[in-house]
């Protein structure tokens, strides 16, 4: 990253960039330095810097609206982009993004990383985002005629495009069982299996709007599934938290105030520390993870593992932001894949039937009501689905049995 002095040999950008040069100073790694580095092998990186400097002067974006490009056979995966100052910066007149489906939990070998770099050196700007918020590798900036060759090289190297548009977007997951003792299901395998099961739905948009899936292997939710996925799979357990009393005593001996900092923060108020013994009334435990987070050597999730399935998260547009809400309180780990496939199919059938144009599943549920949605997908209501029952009496009673013909 210490390539800042490469700026002098910047290709493709004749203009000075005094505003952006300011952003090469300071301790945090500089994206400006990255763009200058890329200009060693790419003329478009230089023009990108020039156009960005103009945006910093003008305080507006200089990208034209939209852009529809792609590769044959797919309806998504490429975000088209055209400059509105292409006469000044011809090398970014076309500057499309390829979304490449990341390996689960973003594990790479150096060889795989170099393969991607070599392909992108041949076909693009040499700039990337590692990674986009949904999880994809973002290959940032190329021209329309390079899309198909880049795609062909990527697939030959074992990489496929991710999702965009009104489709299933690229699923993502936390590090899970690869490096976390709290993983309650195999998030990486589930994420991969779902991605493979829905290749058609990822690559060929067929829905009213986008649909995202994220898998977090415990309630710490390290991929923010509850906030950033229409379908959120969050690991949990059913039986008792495993306690190693000797290790609890070690934490106390090391100075931890267990009663105040651990028991005192328990939302279920179900823990007690008498100075020698930690007790947990597991029936009242909401599996929030606080005590386990605080004392990872002493406390562990139970052995009967699985996940909570939640539905409906989205950003504000159109009817306000939503967090996902509970749909199924517990599915055993070994039944997750089959249960999810069945559930997803039922959700899509309902959405396909009733969803309006550009309506996320969370907004559809708001519009028709959770109860009607449950009827539609064939699930029974359970009290875990609500934070509280309704407080208004505007109830749509269904016909009593004797009224039915």
């Amino acid at each position, binding site marked *: *990253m*210490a390539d800042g002095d490469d700026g002098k040999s910047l290709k493709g950008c004749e203009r000075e960039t005094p505003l952006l040069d300011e952003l090469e100073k300071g*301790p*945090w*790694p500089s*994206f400006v330095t*990255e763009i200058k*580095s890329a200009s060693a092998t790419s003329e478009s990186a230089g023009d990108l810097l020039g156009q*960005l400097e103009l*945006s910093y002067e003008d*305080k*507006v*974006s200089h*990208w034209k*609206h939209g852009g529809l490009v792609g590769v*044959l*056979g*797919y309806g998504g995966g490429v975000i088209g982009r055209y400059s509105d100052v292409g006469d000044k910066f011809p090398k970014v007149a076309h500057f499309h*993004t390829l979304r490449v*489906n990341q390996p689960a*939990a973003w*594990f*790479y*070998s*150096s060889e795989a*990383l170099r393969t991607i770099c070599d392909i992108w050196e041949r076909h693009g700007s040499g700039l990337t*985002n*590692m990674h986009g*918020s949904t999880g994809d590798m973002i290959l*940032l*900036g190329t021209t*329309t005629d390079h899309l198909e060759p880049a795609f*062909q090289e990527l697939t030959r190297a*074992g990489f*496929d495009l991710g999702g965009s548009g009104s489709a299933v977007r690229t699923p993502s997951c936390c*590090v899970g*069982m*690869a490096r976390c003792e709290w*993983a309650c299901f*195999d998030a*990486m*395998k589930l994420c991969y299996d779902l991605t*493979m099961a829905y*290749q058609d739905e990822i690559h060929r948009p067929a829905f009213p709007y986008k649909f995202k899936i994220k898998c977090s292997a415990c*309630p710490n*939710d*390290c991929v*923010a599934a*509850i*906030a*950033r996925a229409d379908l959120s799979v969050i690991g949990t357990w059913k039986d008792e938290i495993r306690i190693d009393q000797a290790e609890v005593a070690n934490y106390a001996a090391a100075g931890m105030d267990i009663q105040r900092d651990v028991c005192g*923060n328990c939302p279920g108020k179900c823990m007690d520390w008498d100075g020698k013994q930690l007790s947990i009334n597991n029936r009242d435990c909401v599996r929030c*993870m*606080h005590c386990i987070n605080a004392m990872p050597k002493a406390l562990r999730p139970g052995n009967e593992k699985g996940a909570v399935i939640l539905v409906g998260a989205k*950003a*504000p*547009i159109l009817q*306000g*932001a939503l967090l996902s809400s509970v749909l199924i309180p517990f599915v055993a780990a070994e039944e997750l894949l089959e249960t999810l496939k069945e559930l997803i199919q039922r959700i899509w059938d309902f959405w396909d039937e009733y969803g309006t144009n*550009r309506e996320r599943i969370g907004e559809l549920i708001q519009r028709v009501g959770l109860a009607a949605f449950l009827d539609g997908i064939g699930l029974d209501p359970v009290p875990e689905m609500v934070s509280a029952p309704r407080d208004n009496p505007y109830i749509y009673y269904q016909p009593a049995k004797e009224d039915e013909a």
Partner: protein
Amino acid sequence: MTTTPLQPRITDIGPPAYDKYLPPVIRKNYGAWKYHEKLAPGVLCHVAESGDRLYTVRAGTPRLLSIQTLRRFADLADKYCDGYLRFTSRNNIEFLLEDATQIEPLKRELVTLGIPVGGMNNAISNIVHTQGWVHCHAAATDASGLVKSVMDALIDHFTQEDLPAKLRIAVACCLNMCGAVHCSDIAILGVHRRPPKVQSEMLKKACEVPTLIASCPTGAIRPVPGVGGKQSVEVIEEQCMYCGNCFSVCPAMRMADAENDGLSIWVGGKVSNARTAPRFSRLAIPYLPNHPPRWPEVVDAVVKIVDVYRGEARKYERVGEWIDRIGWPRFFELTGFEFTRYHIDDFKHAGMNFARSAHVRH
């Protein structure tokens, strides 16, 4: 190049298999980790049931990376950890080592390269952010420049674990809120403050009017006869709150406005279930100006929140939990931020946010 007919095309292969790039120690101990401990800021040790140990060194990246830097990461992975690395869900990079003696040499080399080590536990980790003026047509601000400016100011909280709890910061350049702005401890959000300028000539050619009308959350767009009898729309300006969603579906609704676009600041969101339930971020500052390249007003506001929180919050309290305890009036008093009419919700279920009790602190 596209004139070449497509030889055997490979499609629908998906990503590489989920376990393809796992280092041997992970492959061996997959799903059998016993506990972890922190060794130093940015350094974790995971211990498996087998007794095997895995060391992780986490470092910050600007997310926007050149292939030159990615190749350098690959070289570091080869040199220190048999060629294995990963990225995190906050776009940090993690080197995965089996040999503990390699931790310090790797850290030294990272720091020499200007790559800060940290971002774990009670620290400020990387800022989840978006495309901004680098690649998006709808951005009301730049993302990369804001992130660089804020992280330069907060770097000591990245490299040290000196806060009551983790503190997550996010940036989104418009209120599509790509990323995590709506659920972060501190969030910076690009905003517009003026209605779209309707370009009728373009509208007829480029937009589907019913979709455009349906795109407005407040019903502020209605059809009108346009120039030459062609259909157009008008914006009921009193109803428009400048969300820009009409521009997302129709290029003729131009939103960008150099003088009036800017930033809002939000606080108190979280996604984890630890202690309290996941929750949305709430408005702290309705508007700050866009002042590239360093956005000093934004940096000052974020630093202020971090400083006050660090001084006042109890151990384990996230920003939202801290404000829960002290109350919003005290938050505004301690930060010195002005409470305005803009802080009072007036969208659909606004009353849910009114104070409906006599619980008042004096």
